[in-house]
Every structure is written in structure tokens, then in C-alpha cells.
């Protein structure tokens, strides 16, 4: 129940941000539509701890800047590979262990791998992620398991 109300409040905040016109009638429409969407989400059973993970909270906030920094570094590497006249690519495929406990954690790990240029997660099953990497060095980076550890940290003990 707390989660559904939180979803409705978050939707209404989004509505307030995007609308820009603040008259009583329109605001009541906004409240009605956000409640309707929250109710539909409740009927579809998607407002659970996966669809709306508020419990991650502060730890997620510290994870994002680290991920953005990783993405910037990987971007520069891939851009340099592209603009060099001879394409020095060594495509590699391998399996990586996702040692997160929950499915949200594993999905976060796989999405982080995909978001970083140079590595794409091709399939996720039973705690292993199948990864396609552009170069062997970016593959070694993922196998090294720094990102895995970081996602585990974010996931924490809950």
C-alpha cells in the first residue's frame, strides 16, 4: 500500500513539473489521472519492489555518479578505436558471474554492462551474464569484477 501511494505521489509530482499551469480544475485532473494510473499499476501487479524500487534509496544515488564516470572513460576508448584509420577491434564473447542476490540487482548489473560502450550483455540466465565485448581489454575489465562488486555494494543487505 505504501508503495502504491508512493507511486501515485511520484506520478503527481511529475505531472506538476510537466504541466506548468496551476489552476484548481487542472490540478484536480492531475490528481485523478495519477490515482488512476496507480490503480491500473496495482491491477497489473507491477508496482512491486521490482517496478518501483524505492527501497534502494541512498545507495543508488552514490552508484550513479560512479557509473557515469565509467561510461565516460569507456566512451573515450571506443571513440578512439573508431576514428583510428585501421579498426583495431578484437571482439570477444564470454560469461560473467552476476553475484547479486536479487533479480533487480542482476538486471542492474546487466544494464550497467550494456550502458557502458564496449560491452553488451546478450543474455542473462541463472546468475550468469553472456557478454559481447568490443576489445579483449574491455572484456578483461568486466571479468575483473569491479562493476559486479559495486552493484553488490549498492544492493546492500536488504
Amino acid at each position: 500500500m505504501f508503495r502504491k501511494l508512493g507511486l501515485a505521489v511520484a506520478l503527481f509530482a511529475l505531472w506538476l513539473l510537466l504541466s506548468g499551469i496551476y489552476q484548481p480544475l487542472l490540478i484536480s485532473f492531475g490528481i485523478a489521472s495519477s490515482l488512476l494510473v496507480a490503480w491500473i499499476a496495482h491491477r497489473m501487479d507491477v508496482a512491486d519492489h521490482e517496478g518501483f524500487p524505492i527501497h534502494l534509496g541512498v545507495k543508488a544515488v552514490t552508484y550513479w555518479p560512479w557509473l557515469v564516470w565509467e561510461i565516460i572513460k569507456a566512451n573515450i576508448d571506443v571513440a578512439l578505436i573508431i576514428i583510428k584509420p585501421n579498426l583495431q577491434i578484437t571482439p570477444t564473447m564470454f560469461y560473467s558471474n552476476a553475484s547479486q542476490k536479487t533479480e533487480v540487482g542482476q538486471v542492474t548489473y546487466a544494464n550497467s554492462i550494456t550502458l557502458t560502450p564496449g560491452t553488451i550483455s546478450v543474455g542473462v540466465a541463472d546468475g550468469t551474464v553472456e557478454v559481447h565485448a568490443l576489445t579483449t581489454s574491455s572484456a578483461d575489465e568486466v571479468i575483473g569484477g569491479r562493476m559486479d562488486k559495486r552493484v553488490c555494494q549498492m544492493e546492500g543487505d536488504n
Partner: protein
Amino acid sequence: MFLDVLSWILILSGGVFGVISAIGVLRMPDIYTRMHAASIADTIALGLMCGGMMLQAGWTIVTIKLILILVFIFFASPTTTHALAKAAIAGGIKPILHEDRRKKVSDKTSNKGKGEKS
């Protein structure tokens, strides 16, 4: 003035990264390597350009909308790329590989998994 110069640098470097990613999509040999090039445009080109436009706009509703676009793309882009890669694999397109480490590592992980379960 300083913010102005900074925002121009951000927007122009975003444009350069966008062109680089398009060149990469043209140059790369197969679909999987092209995806790496395309994800440059989804992450850094979009991020830099939106950052530059945020600096131009200041603290207004425009900035909030740009942040919303950025957050949405950051969540949607890996999903799209993953769906595309998985569909390509399921569609039977073999990646051009320099080195295939799937056999070696998969043996190890499957043994490990069995050990943990028992």
C-alpha cells in the same frame, strides 16, 4: 560568460561524439560491433548535448525536461540494445569473434554453481 563558453564546449563535443558514433556504425564489420558504436550516441553524445543545453537554459522548467529526457534514455537505451542483441542471437546471426571465451568460463561457472547448490 564562463558558463556560456562551457556550454558551447559541451554542445560541440556532443556533436563530435554523435558524428563519431555514426561513423562507427558505418565502419564496423558486423551487427554486434555496430551496437557498441551506437551506444556512444545514446550515452555521451546525448549527455553532453543535454548538459550544454541545461547550462544555456538555467534553473527553469526546460532544465527539468532535459533531465527527464536524459533519465529516460539512460533507462531505455540498454533495454533496446539488449533486446536487439538477443533478437539477433536468436535470429541466428553469428558474431565475428577474435576470441571466444564462452567454453572455458562456462565450464568453470557451471561447476561452481553445482558446488554452491549442493
